[in-house]
């Protein structure tokens, strides 16, 4: 028991640190990718190739002046970013980070909690995730913030539906709600992206919308709403909002990789004849590479596509993605019934 418990604690801490680190370096990556796409150099002053830039940013955030508007709801104003980052972190609990380790004869899963309703858990946490933005935006007592919050809530509710339906198709072909099981089955057979190409596309678009990333970053679009829901925020509270956004990106990349790209699985994994621990390490690395690719993809899209108009966003969500997702579900059901 003790070994398992210690391993769990280590795992939790490790994932926490990893998430923070990835989020921090995502900001750096974002700038570098943007610079690359715009044929510039990007940050290169702090450290070699600007590698210490995230640290410098952190220091800046922490040392700036705390500012709380007088007309705001103080408690909720502080609670908002905290809630947002909390929900962003919670999802990582059910993601299987790699094949199980074997230490001293005990099997230790690289997953904080292998609950058998993992998929539902993810959906639940994602659906709760909007509160941080809503509370923060409302508590600021600023019309731009309020508009941002309202936009965020309706956008996230709208896209949750299509996302949920496309995840259900995965559940239908897998027959399980456990993420571990979903990855395991992909390791045995083919990756889900081959079975569910349409579902993957819908999930991808919805993931963009759920993380408020461009081209769906309407809750915070600078050109219309100044800064959206975080207009009134400054210093580290703003930092938390931004940070949480990158965390969300990280987690949703992990979810895409888990659901559609086999998680930690890579081809010919079983044929290598390696020990479980080596495999676990290799699997984790592969998984991480997949995640990094999708983070890059996120940025690639952001610096390539223009922003949607709000009615276009709603149109896409309700009139295109949901019908498509429903059709996809019907087709999957018919297919699995017939074959």
């Amino acid at each position, binding site marked *: 028991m003790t070994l398992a418990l210690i391993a769990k604690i280590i795992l939790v801490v490790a994932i926490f640190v990893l998430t923070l680190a990835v989020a921090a370096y995502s900001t750096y990556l974002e700038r570098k990718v943007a610079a690359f796409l715009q044929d510039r150099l990007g940050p290169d002053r702090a450290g070699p190739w600007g590698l210490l830039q995230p640290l410098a940013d952190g220091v800046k955030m922490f040392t700036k002046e705390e500012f709380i508007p007088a007309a705001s709801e103080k408690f*909720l104003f502080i609670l908002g970013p905290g809630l947002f980052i909390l929900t962003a972190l919670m999802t990582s609990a059910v993601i299987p980070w790699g094949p199980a380790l074997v230490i001293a004869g005990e099997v230790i899963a690289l997953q904080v909690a292998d609950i058998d*309703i993992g998929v*539902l858990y993810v959906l*639940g946490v994602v659906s709760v995730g*909007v509160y941080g933005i809503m509370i923060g935006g409302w508590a600021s007592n600023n019309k731009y913030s309020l508009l941002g919050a*309202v936009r965020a*809530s*309706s956008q*996230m509710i709208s896209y*949750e539906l299509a996302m949920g339906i496309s995840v259900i198709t995965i559940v239908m072909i897998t027959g399980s709600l456990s993420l571990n099981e979903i990855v395991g089955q992909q390791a045995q057979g083919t990756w889900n992206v081959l079975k569910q190409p349409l579902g993957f596309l819908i999930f991808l678009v919805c993931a963009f919308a759920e993380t408020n990333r461009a081209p769906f970053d309407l809750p915070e679009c600078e050109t219309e709403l100044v800064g959206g829901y975080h207009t009134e925020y400054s210093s580290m509270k703003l930092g938390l909002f931004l940070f949480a956004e990158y965390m969300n990106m990280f987690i949703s990349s992990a979810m895409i990789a888990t659901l559609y790209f086999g998680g930690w699985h890579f081809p010919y994994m079983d044929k290598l004849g390696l020990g479980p621990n080596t495999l676990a390490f290799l699997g984790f690395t592969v998984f991480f590479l997949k995640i990094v690719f999708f983070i890059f993809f996120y940025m690639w899209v952001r610096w390539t596509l223009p922003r949607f108009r709000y009615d276009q966003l709603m149109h896409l969500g309700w009139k295109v993605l949901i019908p498509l997702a429903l059709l996809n579900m019907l087709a999957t059901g018919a297919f699995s019934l017939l074959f």
Partner: protein
Amino acid sequence: MQYIFYTLAFFAILCALFVVFEKNPVHSVLYLILTFFSIAGIYVLLNAQFLFIVQLIVYSGAIMVLFLFVLMLLNLNKDTEPQKSVIFKTAGAIAAGSFLLVLVAVLKDTQQSTELSAMTDIGLVKQLGKTLFTKFVVPFEVASILFLAAMVGSVLLGKKELY
């Protein structure tokens, strides 16, 4: 274990009271969300895993977001709600209080089955799914029609062109 339950119960009741007595409607919504979270916790204690997650997704994730959304959309502040007359308030409080008394009194008298079940897996998605799609399949399908009707109805109501 039982302390978790009593804590959750206390928390739920407290938040529910705040829902009623809080002047600012947005705070009311937030307290109601907390109440629902406590209730979700109670579901976990009852081994009702599925209910827990559905409570989270449906109530906290959808219904309450909708409430919050509407409140923010209408931009209602605490000043906008006029207070009731004292007569109505006392009448309401007395009615609700006596309702509670009677309810507890009546339920105290009911016969509970003394034989408690040892089955712990009935709240799992697998079990509930099987029951839902065999015994309750017709209500399930009817519920989907209800949803469709509600959706069409609210879209129609929300259209501005009608007026």
